[in-house]
């Protein structure tokens, strides 16, 4: 989504409130795992830590596991359990 060298991280709902921001740009090397992104996010947005066990993560609009590969230009999203419907 954004220039190479960074990953965009989006926050929604209570995760956005807790992070204090809707979006972060994280500089990343060519390939990392989602687990590494998660660690960086929780460091940058410490307010998310109390929610850590609840958070859901997606990479490029798909739910993703910690082992999922993330590359520059990807979009990661972080949000609490969904409550639509």
């Amino acid at each position: 989504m954004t220039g190479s060298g960074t990953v965009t991280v989006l926050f929604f709902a209570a995760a956005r409130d807790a992070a204090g921001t809707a979006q972060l740009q994280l500089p990343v090397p060519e390939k990392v795992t989602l687990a590494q992104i998660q660690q960086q996010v929780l460091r940058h947005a410490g307010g998310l830590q109390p929610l850590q066990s609840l958070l859901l993560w997606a990479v490029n609009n798909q739910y993703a596991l910690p082992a999922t590969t993330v590359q520059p230009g990807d979009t990661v999203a972080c949000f609490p359990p969904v409550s639509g419907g």
Partner: protein
Amino acid sequence: MPVIHLTDQPLDYTAITESVRDPAAGAVVLFLGTVREFTAGQQTEHLEYEAYREMAESSLKQLADEASARFPIVKTAIVHRLGVLQLSDVAVAIAVSTPHRAQAFTAGQWLIDTLKQRVPIWKREHYTDGRVLWQHPVAVADSAAGQSEAT
């Protein structure tokens, strides 16, 4: 193309239902999720839905595809409203047509149950006592009392 989208406008559930009618179908089931006034003794004044729009739209399309693989669906339509909703407004409309009636109920219920588990949309309740709470299957954020089975 199936009618599947998010909207900020009041839902036209008649158009949604019309879109699934078909001579191959003997049954149509329409599900509407509507804004309920009282939940567990708390009175809602109004509520808001927020979505991760891009993922929610692809997630709704995947839901329709998966339903068509699981059930003998003729046509499906799913529309979710976002933004501020008042009491008894329609938050979500799911319509499904199938050859026989039991299939339509099963498919409709699977679609709303699975939508509520997967699609990245969040509800924030504004209660009459002034509290504002994100609703999640497990209560988080502002304080206690999240509600897991909202509709």
